[in-house]
């Protein structure tokens, strides 16, 4: 462990400079202890060497006429994980409340604080609560809140210098957590912790595992007279028990003693008429390595491990800050998951980019160059095929002419013919049929029509009724009668 005294700030600064921010840009964390009218800014030393970074007089710190006197720039750059304030700065009360719904509970507490502590309007934003079991069937709501104006002044000042505490607690709540860890029966009945120092004694009284009140007893100078000290303690402790019984309607059934003066244990037990359970002082990462006994005061029973900024003990947080802290895991998870996904997707992108291979499209381009653009070739081929097919399907006028000539019987004289090959393909035919009578005419016409149908195979066969017949005027001088026929054969 590294010890930083108040006179060795330069070493602390050097040390602080090596505190790297965490991965998500977080600051290094310190804890702030208020004891003996002084503020101690301490590096808790969970992973890095612990040390006292800054010590400032409370009055000087809160004086609005002075700036943040004595507060090192390195201290201001850190995150204030915990503020330990005196017990008497915090008030508490217990009420029966059935619902466990957070909005209902908080609304109730805020209403109650407004009604009962109108002089501390800000108490609505600084309070903590928990439920505890009073009996098998009933639970109670335990609420604690700052009740000293100095507390709010200190919170504001710390916020102003960028050291708003993430958690605020007091020695009593640290003891409450420690004792409940050590003794299974601690949450049952009334319990008292006697923390005896050389010149003072701190009494902490708990009911059903919840802190009720504490007292500080200044011991009179007895020049080593154990009996006189015991008598004074006996009187004060009994006074406190009386007060406790008035508040809790029950007595104290368990006493714990923390003291380096072992010789007082037996006389005090005899004087009180009760057994005292001695507590051992924590040796691990002891605060006494950082602060002297006078500076430690009520905090002398704790190690830095008991005051972890991560919590585990009852504490309160400024409500807006609490909301931020509640969202902190979401933010961190969001950042971590987001970065993971982003890396995964970037990896996928890299894979996508390299997967086809560098010659994936070059090979295709080379092939195209070798044979020409096949798409263009095929398009030209399709166009050519259409044109060639259309040309091949076009009716052959030579064949039509030949077929027409071949269809004309010997008795029939072809006069005119008109061929249409495009819009409505067909042939308009005019012919003359010499015939002595209708019988012969019909025979020749039938033969002509039959020949045409056989050779041209029109979609709709030509019928004799489709043929227009008229006498041929040019044949009047000839002995044999002639008839002019006219028809159109569609192809």
């Amino acid at each position, binding site marked *: 462990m590294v010890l930083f005294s108040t006179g060795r700030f330069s070493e602390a600064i050097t040390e602080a400079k090596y505190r790297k921010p965490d991965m*998500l840009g977080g600051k290094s964390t310190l804890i702030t202890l208020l004891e003996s009218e002084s503020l101690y800014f301490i590096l808790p030393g969970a992973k890095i060497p612990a040390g006292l970074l800054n010590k400032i007089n409370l009055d000087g710190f809160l004086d609005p006429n002075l700036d943040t006197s004595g507060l090192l720039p390195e201290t201001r750059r850190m995150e204030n994980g915990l503020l330990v304030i005196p017990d008497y700065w915090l008030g508490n009360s217990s009420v029966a409340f059935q619902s466990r719904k957070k909005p209902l509970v908080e609304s109730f507490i805020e209403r109650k604080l407004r009604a009962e502590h109108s002089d501390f309007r800000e108490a609505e934003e600084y309070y903590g609560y928990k439920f505890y079991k009073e009996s098998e069937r009933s639970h109670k709501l335990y609420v604690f809140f700052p009740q000293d104006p100095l507390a709010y002044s200190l919170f504001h000042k710390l916020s102003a210098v960028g050291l708003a505490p993430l958690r605020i607690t007091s020695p009593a709540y640290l003891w409450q957590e420690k004792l409940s860890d050590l003794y299974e029966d601690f949450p049952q009945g009334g319990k008292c912790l006697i923390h005896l120092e050389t010149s003072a004694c701190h009494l902490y009284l708990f009911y059903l595992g919840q802190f009720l009140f504490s007292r500080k007893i200044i011991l009179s100078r007895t020049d080593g007279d154990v009996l006189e000290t015991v008598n004074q303690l006996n009187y004060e402790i009994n006074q406190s028990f009386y007060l406790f019984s008035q508040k809790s309607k029950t007595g104290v059934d368990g006493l714990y003693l923390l003291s380096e003066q072992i010789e007082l244990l037996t006389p005090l037990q005899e004087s009180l008429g009760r057994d005292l359970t001695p507590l051992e002082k924590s040796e691990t990462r002891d605060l006494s390595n950082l602060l002297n006994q006078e500076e430690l005061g009520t905090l002398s029973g704790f190690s830095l491990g008991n005051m972890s900024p991560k919590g585990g003990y009852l504490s309160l947080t400024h409500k*807006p800050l609490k909301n931020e802290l509640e969202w902190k895991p979401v933010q961190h998870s969001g950042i971590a998951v*987001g970065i993971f996904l982003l890396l995964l997707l970037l990896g996928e*992108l890299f894979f996508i980019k390299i997967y086809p291979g560098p010659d994936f499209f070059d090979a295709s381009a080379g092939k195209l160059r070798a044979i020409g653009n096949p798409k263009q070739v095929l398009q030209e081929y399709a166009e050519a095929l259409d*044109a060639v097919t259309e040309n091949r399907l076009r009716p052959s006028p030579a064949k039509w002419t030949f077929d027409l000539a071949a269809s004309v019987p010997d008795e029939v004289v072809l*006069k005119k013919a008109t061929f249409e090959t495009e819009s409505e393909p067909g042939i308009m035919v005019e012919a003359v049929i010499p015939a002595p009578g209708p019988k012969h005419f019909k025979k020749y016409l039938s033969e002509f029509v039959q020949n045409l149908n056989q050779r041209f195979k029109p979609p709709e066969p030509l019928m004799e009724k489709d043929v227009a017949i008229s006498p041929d005027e040019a044949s009047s001088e000839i002995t044999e009668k002639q008839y002019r026929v006219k028809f159109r054969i569609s192809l």
Partner: protein
Amino acid sequence: MSDRVKKKWLAVGLIWLGVVLTTFYNFAEVDRINALRLQKEILGMDARFVTANKDPIEAVTREKALLTHSVDSPGMGLMTLENKIDLISKDCGFSNVVVEDKIEDTESQDAEISLYLSGSLTDLVRLLMKLQSEMPYTSLKHMEFDMGTSATTPQFQLIMKYRYALTEPGTEE
């Protein structure tokens, strides 16, 4: 809300924006590659088809080329055409041959040719067959003939469509 918390939310937002944008970009890139791959497959199939059917494709292309008369100018084309028709007609036995041409639209690169002939039906069939085989860039649209009387020669009128293409400078027919 403190600046630090705001910065963290901003970081969360930017990171997730990056995630969303990268996701969309990746989808688009996968689609693009799939499209290119499909295009490559189609090109490959086309190329295989073209290679396997090289001869028929060339034959059809050549035949299609014959359906258009490559000329330096429409006037030159018509002059050549008229001359050739005159020769073929005479070769088929026609003597009085009249050829009229009419270019209606130079954009469509075709012209209408009218041909007036007198001769026998047999000569006409021979002429039509020769026109079809030797001048595939012409096609008959309309044909009339009047056989007249036994004392007169049959008269024929043919209206044909003539397709031509102007050759690019520097290319030869």
